[in-house]
């Protein structure tokens, strides 16, 4: 058994702060001296950092930690910074804690963290990087062969002007006001001006002489220029070859002023969120709950994928935290939490509300109280030590609070007491309660299953039940309870709780009087609850699961519990093949109808031809017969009529010729008939007869007659023929990149069959670099390229957009094989629990790939990669399924 700790392992204040400095030694010292429990928030931050370092310099990083005060956000951020430093000591990291909503001041503090020699070095290595890039660009792909005369290399040095020109372009891409910034960078490496240029970059005032010499004008003093400056700094560091991490802490102070969002600042942050990752930097935003909710919707969405909501500690996590600290203080550390007892741990949670800072403070004072006697720290010790610190009200105090609030709101309520303790308020009285406000002690995880189920059970009896819990509810249980009850408030003594309570009472006061309909809970649900009760499912996950299911059941009436994914998958697959068959049948039917029309028209024309020829003959005969007897005019009229009829015959003949129907008698029963017939038919792209057009699609050389075939495809009205043409075109040897104009045009004109040109394997070419035009394609088209070229995924790489197709690209491994989505796609979904993707993003991607929705990629049944599209689609459906069906509560806030 481990020794009793000789010193207090806990920090008295429980706060974690970070110095605003980029000096790496601070980070390593801190991580050496401060124990860290790897809680979900820390894990999230580490995951983001690792992904960033792995992807550097190809990809940037973006992450956000948010949660209540004292929940360990700064600690997590710092731990991440220490990790980054350990993993890559070259990394440049800056940490900034917003103190107000003044970005200019923040910028000045931030940039000043980077010492002048570092910036000067970075400026130089930035130029060297560009020079290297330019040299590599001109050198082509072949590397100097071994043994070749070395002095040849560098025969053409890249001109410095050229390097600066390239730099100007890059700077202009990330920052407005680019010339000033470029000058500052240039003068950073000129001996006499380096200091002044550095000061200017830091936003400090510099002398007029220096400003004129460097050509930068006045001091940086507006938020926009500061934003540019920060973006430039990112480019400077990352292009200088070093990872760059920016941590912005307490963003709420920047985003909100007196609780109200400041739109200008939100916009500013949004630009940083866009540009820093784009410039291969990593941005970590740290904010409170209010800051998170104060963000504009689109900013939140942008952050969502990398956001980590830090929740109050679960008992398990609290145990981890305690053991991390105790382990750091006791030599020969054990995993245990001795001297704390389990009861003591729960008591800590009860009084701290799961807030890690408070928990550490309470642990500190409990230890102080117990240490002189080397006594175990149990519930009593904690309770004694907590009296000074605890913020959360006792049950009796909570009852008083509620009663006061109700009275202020002018509401009459009856108290319900059990064992001399007030357990609930019922409005207007207990016989026919319209509203029930239940009070409860803290709700933990495992040992309070009974408590929780009881709460749920009694809740369902009333139309409106609010549950007020003192101190602490473990986050999973809270989620589950919120799924069942309309209102669950946690009385943690904060101002937030007072506001919420006030709001609750106001809502109750404004409710219509006849609301209550008791006895809503059906028997099955009751039985379920009984089962929960009797079984006393101690196991945490099981409880959560049951509660979640129950919540869904209450919400969604009689809906059956969801079948497992395999069943859903089979269902989807069946539906897909069904709609596919329907579509194929429709295409075939359309073709056949068109063909029948043409054949019928030919019959009609033949009929008219016969009639016209007959009429002409008859008229001529009559004219000849009557020529001798009757007058000239009559014969003339008859002859004219004959001529007219002959003309009609000619016309019919011409139309027939134009129609050029081949094999009019042939029977078309199946596509096999069609293929056979088409091979015997003279091809014609413009024929009215679809058979001849089909023959054209089969017989045209896709390389020689590429433009004609493409044109025919774009003009073709029948899907079946278009598909044949598209397939034919896809046999062309043209590189993918050269087909892009047709593809784009076809998409514009609503001819999806052009995608066949894209969904094919790119032949190996000399150049290893993927063509630019492919990179510029819309992401959903690049999905096809990636599917068709699984071995050369970089063909499909391109700018990261926020479009649904991006997730598909990630899953296919375009963003690196180690991307979590890519790994999940290769493996099994069950392992992907940590992927936090908002369901709406998943849904959008599934929609994009869907074979069931209009214009989904999966509806292009004739694509050669269609089975792969299906796989991808089912993968996203599966992810969605797991998020929606299995983990219903993880995204509720």
């Amino acid at each position, binding site marked *: 058994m481990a020794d009793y700790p000789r010193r207090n392992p806990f920090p008295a204040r429980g706060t974690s702060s970070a110095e605003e400095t980029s000096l790496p030694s601070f980070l390593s010292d801190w991580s050496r001296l401060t124990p860290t429990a790897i809680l979900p928030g820390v894990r999230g931050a580490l995951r983001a950092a690792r992904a960033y370092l792995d992807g550097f310099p190809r990809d940037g990083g973006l992450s956000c930690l948010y949660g209540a005060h004292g929940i360990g956000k700064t600690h997590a951020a710092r731990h991440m910074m220490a990790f980054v430093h350990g993993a890559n000591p070259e990394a440049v990291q800056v940490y900034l804690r917003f103190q107000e909503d003044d970005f200019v001041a923040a910028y000045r503090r931030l940039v000043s963290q980077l010492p002048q020699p570092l910036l000067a070095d970075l400026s130089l290595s930035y130029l060297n990087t560009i020079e290297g890039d330019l040299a590599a660009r001109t050198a082509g792909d072949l590397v100097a062969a071994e043994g070749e005369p070395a002095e040849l290399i560098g025969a053409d040095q890249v001109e410095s002007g050229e390097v600066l020109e390239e730099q*100007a372009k890059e700077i202009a891409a990330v920052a407005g006001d680019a010339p000033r910034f470029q000058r500052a960078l240039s003068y950073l490496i000129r001996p006499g001006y380096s200091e002044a240029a550095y000061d200017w970059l830091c936003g400090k005032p510099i002398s007029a002489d220096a400003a004129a010499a460097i050509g930068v004008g006045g001091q940086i003093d507006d938020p926009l220029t500061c934003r540019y400056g920060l973006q430039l700094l990112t480019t400077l560091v990352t292009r200088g070859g070093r990872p760059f991490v920016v941590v912005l802490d307490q963003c709420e102070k920047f985003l909100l002023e007196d609780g109200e969002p400041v739109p200008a600042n939100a916009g500013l942050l949004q630009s940083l969120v866009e540009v820093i990752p784009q410039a291969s930097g990593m941005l970590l935003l740290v904010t409170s709950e209010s800051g998170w909710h104060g963000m504009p919707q689109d900013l939140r969405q942008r952050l969502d994928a990398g956001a980590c909501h830090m929740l109050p500690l679960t008992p398990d996590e609290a145990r981890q935290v305690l053991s991390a600290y105790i382990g750091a203080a006791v030599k020969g550390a054990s995993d245990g939490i001795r001297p704390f007892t389990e009861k003591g741990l729960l008591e800590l949670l009860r009084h701290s509300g799961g807030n890690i800072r408070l928990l550490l403070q309470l642990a500190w004072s409990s230890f102080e109280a117990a240490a002189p006697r080397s006594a175990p720290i149990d519930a009593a010790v904690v309770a004694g030590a907590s009296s000074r610190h605890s913020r959360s009200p006792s049950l009796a105090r909570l009852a008083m609070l509620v009663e006061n609030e109700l009275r202020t709101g002018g509401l009459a309520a009856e108290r319900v007491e059990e064992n001399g303790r007030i357990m609930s308020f019922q409005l207007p009285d207990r016989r026919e309660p319209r509203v029930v406000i239940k009070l409860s002690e803290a709700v933990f995880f495992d040992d309070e299953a009974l408590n929780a189920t009881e709460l749920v059970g009694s809740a369902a009896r009333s139309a409106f039940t609010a549950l007020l819990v003192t101190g602490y509810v473990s986050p999973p249980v809270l989620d589950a309870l919120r799924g069942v009850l309309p209102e669950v408030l946690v009385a943690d003594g904060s101002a937030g709780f007072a506001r919420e309570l006030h709001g609750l009472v106001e809502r109750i006061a404004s409710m219509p009087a006849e609301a209550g309909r008791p006895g809503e809970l059906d028997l099955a649900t009751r039985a379920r609850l009984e089962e929960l009760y009797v079984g006393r499912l101690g196991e945490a996950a099981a409880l959560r699961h049951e509660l979640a299911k129950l919540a869904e059941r209450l919400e969604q009436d009689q809906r059956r519990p969801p079948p497992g994914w395999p069943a859903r998958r089979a269902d989807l697959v069946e539906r897909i093949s069904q709609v596919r068959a329907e579509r194929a049948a429709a295409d075939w039917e359309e073709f056949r109808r068109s063909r029948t029309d043409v054949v019928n028209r030919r019959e009609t024309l033949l009929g008219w031809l016969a009639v016209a020829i007959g009429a002409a003959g008859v008229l001529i005969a009559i004219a000849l017969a009557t020529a001798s007897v009757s007058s000239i005019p009559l014969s003339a009229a008859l002859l004219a009529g004959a001529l007219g009829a002959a003309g009609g015959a000619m016309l019919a003949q011409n139309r027939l010729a134009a129609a050029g129907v081949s094999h009019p008698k042939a029977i078309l029963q199946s596509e096999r008939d069609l293929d056979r017939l088409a091979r015997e038919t003279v091809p014609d792209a413009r024929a009215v007869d679809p058979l001849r057009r089909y023959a054209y699609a089969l017989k045209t050389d896709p390389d020689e007659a590429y433009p004609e075939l493409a044109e025919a495809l774009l003009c073709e009205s029948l899907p079946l023929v278009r598909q044949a043409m598209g397939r034919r075109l896809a046999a062309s040897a043209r590189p993918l990149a050269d087909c892009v104009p047709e593809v784009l045009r076809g998409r514009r004109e609503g001819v999806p069959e052009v995608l066949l040109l894209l969904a094919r394997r790119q032949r190996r070419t000399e150049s290893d670099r993927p063509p630019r035009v492919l990179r510029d394609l819309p992401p959903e088209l690049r999905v096809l390229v990636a599917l068709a070229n699984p071995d050369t995924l970089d063909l499909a790489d391109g700018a990261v957009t926020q479009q649904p197709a991006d997730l598909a690209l990630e899953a296919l491994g375009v963003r690196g094989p180690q991307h979590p989505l890519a790994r999940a796609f290769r493996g099994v979904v069950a392992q992907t629990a940590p992927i936090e993707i908002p369901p709406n993003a998943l849904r959008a991607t599934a929609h994009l790939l869907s074979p069931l929705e209009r214009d989904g990629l999966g509806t292009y049944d004739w694509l050669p990669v269609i089975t792969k599209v299906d796989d991808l689609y089912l993968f996203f459906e599966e992810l969605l399924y797991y998020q929606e069906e299995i983990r219903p509560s993880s995204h509720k806030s």
Partner: protein
Amino acid sequence: MHPADARYELYGLQGNPYAVGPLDAVSCDSDREMLLELAGIRMSAIEEAVERAVARKRPAFFLITGVGKSGRTSLANHVMRLYRDACDKPGYTFVTHYAEPEDMTHDAYAQMCSTLLDLRNKMNECAIKIPDELRARFTELSRRSSTDPMNEYDLQELAGFAGATFAAANVGFGVRYEGVPAGKLIWLAMKVFESTSTVVVFVVDAYDHANTARLTMADRERFAARGHIVDLGALTPEQITELARRRWNGRPPPPFHEEGLRGALSGRTYTVGQAMRRLELLLEFRLREYEKDDPWPTADLHMPENWLRLRIWQGERWNGLGGTHG
């Protein structure tokens, strides 16, 4: 074999005739003959501009733009030399003020002060007696800071005074600004030297970045009204062939197969510096491949078309010799 082992004497050479930096026609007479009328240079127009300025006792302003290694500095020096020659009379001497790119800042006024004060130093070097009044003006100039600048007409008067002092001592002077970072300097210098007999050459990088003067069409027109503009471009294969021939100073004939060189270079564009560098390397290759001792002319020292093509191709493929357009 080490490059030092290339035996140039076999060609009757002292060294590689193509391995040269910028020409300085002002200080070196032989360099005067070496500048060729290539890459957009129309010597007659330049000479005419110089002579007109000298005849009217007006300043001659030249603006030379071009990318790196396009021969800007050589041409600037050549222009100075032309000016000097045009002024030539018995006992005439010529001094220059060169502002190099690393001396340049965006502060045009400070730059101009440096120029004028350097002219004062040049007077001292030439042992020209500076009139007291002029000395006082110089003292005032150096004492006043940028926050309290002299008016540009004051500067003009000072420059005129200095020019007159030089002229009285039968000394001429020229100014060359390399890598002009901003247009301001050009306009200020043109104003300051407006009534001085001198030559001022502005060399501007033809790149698009924040540390070079980006001249608009209007700027160029404005300059052309009072000065002469030369835009240095890339050489054609014919011009490179001519360069190879004219710079050859070994035993004649030049060892290049002229047609072959032209052919091998066709479709490529090089600045004069890049072309020279290639010629230098080609000559060196030939010598290093040569193991006999017979001097030029001999078949093995000749550079035939196939050899040239192969070498140029090799250079581009293996060594990043492709140039900026390769």
